[in-house]
């Protein structure tokens, strides 16, 4: 199991340290990293899909890893986005970065990859928190890759959220360990004492800030708006998901029962995030900030899963859980594509306003089409993964009679459509045709298009994804 964590990192670290250019061609090294990851993957696949290994480093605490379908999906997603997104970022930024910055970029990418894999695989709180902290360090450094007032302020904002959350998490972990004698998620006993409940609430409180849940989202738009677009792509696609994933694992894998008011609160805050993020995105004059606000809007959906699952029948609850992870995949791919395409567009226009898009329609078609396809996935229209995810969530909420969440999900799609179509609309405008455009190189248009196509077509491949998550596949009857 541990081999999944480390081999991919070695080539990246080497690349980061090495000064000899020809060998550290990012293509070659990422290929090596991918091959190693694949080997580790196959080694595990040969044993059993549901294996869980243990690190012997800290035997006292019993830290361990777990690989299941969801973790496997997240590992695959991370591999795709780190290698693909990394290469895209390299192509986008190479010319502008000094040698030290390049080295920092690859180091941070390695750190991010390792930290994320740790989060996906960790089956106990200690490793989970370690992974989250690694990710946080990588994020702070990546945001500031090109120092400036805006990036510094953005990194500071993120750091404040992380630093104020970290002690809360540590305290919560300590209380949980004392109370239940273990940090392994599965072994956390159902809490009778209010102390355990309190600790569980603390974990939630410590994580929602990083997951940018309304009203603790304020750090996100400046951070994702200020970082370089390909880096924002990674941050919004993967990093925000890590915190949500941790929270989800914490409540759904441990034996703790989330109190009713808490799940409802998470759901209501999620609904508010959908509305507020959508509204801010709709009002936003800058393209990259619009995409960033869209993240606040989209992350809100994730939190609807808590109340929906809590009230769902035993048969339907796995559907909603699967639905939310399809949503995670969809948003990760689509948002990465949006940021990359937005980066291409902004660079081509030499300006970052939504209004500046007027008259670009015919002249940067590939990037615009990527943006458009990713937008379809964000709006949750078929056949995107967003549509499939919404279908599963709607089905569960209607099945258990929670029509108010139905209304939130259906209405939320219209909110997203409002800000996405605002961008589409500008691109069709024929005013401003005299604009001087420098179309992006073809190589930079590949990755956003690929990711957008994957997101927009994901709904057609829902069945294999569900199978990977352990839900009945084709021909196994209705659940």
């Amino acid at each position, binding site marked *: 199991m541990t081999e999944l964590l480390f081999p991919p990192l070695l080539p990246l670290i080497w690349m980061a340290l090495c000064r000899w250019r020809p060998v550290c061609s990012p293509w070659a090294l990422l290929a090596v990293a991918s091959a190693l990851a694949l080997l580790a993957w196959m080694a595990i696949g040969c044993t059993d899909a549901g294996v869980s290994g243990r690190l012997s480093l800290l035997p006292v605490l019993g830290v361990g890893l777990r690989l299941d379908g969801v973790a496997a999906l997240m590992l695959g997603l991370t591999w795709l986005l780190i290698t693909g997104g990394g290469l895209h970022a390299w192509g986008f930024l190479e010319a502008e970065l000094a040698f030290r910055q390049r080295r920092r970029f690859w180091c941070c990418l390695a750190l991010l990859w390792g930290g994320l894999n740790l989060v996906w695989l960790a089956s106990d709180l200690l490793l989970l928190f370690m992974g989250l902290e690694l990710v946080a360090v990588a994020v702070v450094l990546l945001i500031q890759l090109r120092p400036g007032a805006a990036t510094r302020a953005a990194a500071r904002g993120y750091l404040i959220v992380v630093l104020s959350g970290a002690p809360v998490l540590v305290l919560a972990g300590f209380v949980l360990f004392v109370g239940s004698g273990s940090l392994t998620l599965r072994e956390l006993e159902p809490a009778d004492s209010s102390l355990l409940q309190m600790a569980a609430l603390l974990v939630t409180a410590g994580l929602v800030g990083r997951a940018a849940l309304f009203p603790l989202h304020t750090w996100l738009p400046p951070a994702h708006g200020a970082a370089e677009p390909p880096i924002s792509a990674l941050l919004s696609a993967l990093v925000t998901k890590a915190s949500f994933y941790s929270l989800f694992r914490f409540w759904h894998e441990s034996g703790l029962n989330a109190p009713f008011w808490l799940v409802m609160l998470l759901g209501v805050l999620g609904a508010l995030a959908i509305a507020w993020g959508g509204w801010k995105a709709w009002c936003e004059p800058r393209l990259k900030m619009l995409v960033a606000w869209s993240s606040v809007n989209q992350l809100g959906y994730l939190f609807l899963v808590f109340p929906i699952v809590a009230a769902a029948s035993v048969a339907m609850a796995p559907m909603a859980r699967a639905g939310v992870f399809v949503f995670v995949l969809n948003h990760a791919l689509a948002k990465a594509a949006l940021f990359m395409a937005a980066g291409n567009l902004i660079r081509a226009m030499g300006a970052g306003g939504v209004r500046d898009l007027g008259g670009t329609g015919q002249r940067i078609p590939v990037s615009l089409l990527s943006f458009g396809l990713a937008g379809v996935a964000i709006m949750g229209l078929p056949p995107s993964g967003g549509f499939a995810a919404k279908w599963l969530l709607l089905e569960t909420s209607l099945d258990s009679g929670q029509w108010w969440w139905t209304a939130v999900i259906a209405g939320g799609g219209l909110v997203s459509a409002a800000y996405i179509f605002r961008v589409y609309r500008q691109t069709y405008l024929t005013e401003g045709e005299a604009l001087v455009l420098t179309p992006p190189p073809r190589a930079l248009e590949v990755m956003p298009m690929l990711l957008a196509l994957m997101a927009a077509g994901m709904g057609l491949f829902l069945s294999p994804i569900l199978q990977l998550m352990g*839900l009945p596949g084709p021909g196994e009857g209705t659940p």
Partner: protein
Amino acid sequence: MMGQGLLPMLTLGTSLVAAVFIFALREHQHRLRTTVNLAAALLKLTLVVIMGWGVAQGEVYELRWVFRSGLDIVLRADQLSIVFAGLSSMLWLCTTIFAIGYLEGSPGRSRFFGFFSFCVASTMGVALAGNLFTFLIFYEILTLATYPLVVHRGTRAALNAGRTYVTYALAGGAALMVGVVWLHTLAGTEDFQPGGYLLENARTQPVALTGIFVLLVAGLGVKAALMPFHSWLPAAMVAPAPVSALLHAVAVVKAGAFGLIRVIHDLYGPEAVQYLGVGGPLAVLAGITILYGSLRALQQQDLKRRLAFSTVSQVSYITLGAALLGPAAFIGAIVHLIHQGIMKITLFFCAGNYAETRGIHRIDELDGMGRFMPLTSAAFSVAALGMIGVPPLAGFISKWWLGLGGLGAGQGAWVVPVLVASTLLNAAYFLPIINRLWFLEPGGATVGGRSPWQQEAHAWLLWPALFTGVLVILAGILASMPFSPLVWAQFMVREVYGL
């Protein structure tokens, strides 16, 4: 089985592949683009004809793709799908020719024709959808595919029309989606079947099924331009004429009307709709829309706007026929689905010809046009007379059956007067145009010294209009020939109503 699934997939795939290919073309590759467009349109028409022939022989063409366990994406050609697929593939060919002529030399043709093909691919999906879930998927994709066409001109007016259109269409799509999911949780999603499959559920859960029916009708009613949801359609007439043809005759409003027929006859089934008592209110709503659309059409002085309101009114005939729940009314609905398409596309082609050839947009500029553009004006007049319902043209056939349906459903007391009133209103807004075309003296804008034939529209614009104009006549005269829409509808009604 795979061989049988191939045809629906190819039918869908032809225009999809054409769309991707056209997107990749450069702006100036005019000849290649035209070839691809026409080849795809012809190929699709051939495939639909083959499928139609097979379906008439009792063949089943079906393609299944598992979305998740218990929920499939189904493409299937049955008799009703052939009606819509045949209509749109036939008219798509005409519209493609017309659009090539119309957009000659204007910018953004690759984008336009790419989305144009994409739009038709999704229309085919709507037609061939074998269950409600598949229908929902293509119905939503259709919205996305038409938006770029509506805003194609890129002017503020076009963009605002596009905004109105997507606002309505996406809100309708959301309502439809909730309805489809809700129905799925109650009764599962089964394949459409003549006569429907929800009677049992309607008996046990009448309230929920009524709610679902309302959601579905609201979602479909948006595209079918049913009364409170109709205003996007007149707004969208700022789009280029081929797009109007697509919206009004081939794809969008037809997808809504077709969906209503599907829901009432192949999903709920006439008995269940009868049991729930939701058919009557829908029919009344359709009746109100018919009269309202005609009244508004009467007030318009812009030719395309008048035609747009006329569509609002005419499409509701289909809804009315579907909601009246009788064999005759059902025949009327199916036949009108086709006949309205042929007539309305002719009218929009002609309106496009006037606008493109002589810059005429307003009705009062049409004076004496019959002398300058005799063929276009003849096609226009035939289609307009057909719309009024003058025998033996296409519109007469459908109105006749709708009237019979109204009597048969025991609602003759109000349906027949509505039809009569609407016919009078149709005459009131079409006859003055015909009068202006042929009997009034031309205004100042005449082109002297050239014969009328030289002043006619360009051949690419003229021929589609003439062809569909002739179809309007043939559909009326040959209504009882085999494979005519009427005979086909009579063939279908036996299955739905078990006659």
